[in-house]
């Protein structure tokens, strides 16, 4: 029996729709560095109105909580940070879907995403590690939880030599994250 998991519940529908997406957040940081158990998955996606409706339809069953379609459309119209949650009723597993909208960093990172299949052969597209770090720095600057500190430090420890420093440091400067970054460096 296949156990419920974040990929089969929330990523597989995106693959079936053929939309451009990337997994970020703690699922990505723990795949890139040390394992950390989390029961939610953060996904950035480029969705047209029609694709948003199809994704909504994929979750609009008694098995899931998904907000009303009009809420999804409102969130999609935000220039940045539009998002909605989907929750699997039987397990409490949760997905936070973020609309890429016109967000420059998200759009740039989607071009650099990389894929890895899971145990069932389901393809998973991951945000580049630099984006995962940057998004956690943004959370931290705006009052995010200390777990983001541990995630960033683990990624720096494990992937330090392979990070694209030009991308990372350039975005830290353009996003005004220098102080947050300096507070985390070992």
């Amino acid at each position, binding site marked *: 029996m296949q156990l419920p998991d974040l990929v089969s519940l929330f990523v597989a529908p995106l693959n079936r729709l053929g939309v451009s997406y990337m997994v970020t957040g703690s699922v990505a940081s723990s795949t890139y560095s040390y*394992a950390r158990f989390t029961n939610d998955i953060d996904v950035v996606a480029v969705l047209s109105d029609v694709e948003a409706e199809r994704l909504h339809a994929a979750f609009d069953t008694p098995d899931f909580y998904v*907000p009303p379609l009009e809420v999804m459309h409102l969130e999609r119209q935000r220039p940045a940070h539009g998002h909605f949650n989907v*929750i699997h*009723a039987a*397990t*409490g*597993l949760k997905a936070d879907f973020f609309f890429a909208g016109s967000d420059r960093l998200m759009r740039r990172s989607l071009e650099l995403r990389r894929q890895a*299949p899971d145990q069932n052969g389901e393809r998973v597209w991951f945000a580049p590690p630099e984006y995962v770090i940057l998004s956690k720095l943004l959370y931290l600057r705006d009052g995010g939880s200390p777990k983001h500190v541990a995630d960033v430090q683990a990624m720096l420890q494990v992937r330090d030599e392979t990070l694209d420093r030009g991308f990372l440091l350039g975005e830290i400067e353009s996003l005004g994250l220098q102080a947050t970054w300096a507070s985390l460096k070992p």
Partner: protein
Amino acid sequence: MLDPLIPVQPHHLEAERIYVEIARRLTPAQQLATLHGLQQTAWALKASLLRSEHGELTEEDIQLLVRESFRDATP
């Protein structure tokens, strides 16, 4: 978790309420099964990423690296 970058909207609060309600309802056996599923997926993804990034590693090397990553896992 509410996103600190976004002003709280009614539907975010509704999702949070439902999430807490489901979490309270789950039995320990259900929670354990879910945790097992999460671990299997996390293990597979980690191994898969290592395979794609380090073609020079043997499968034994990969499984060892994944095991080490889980040994240092944090809650």
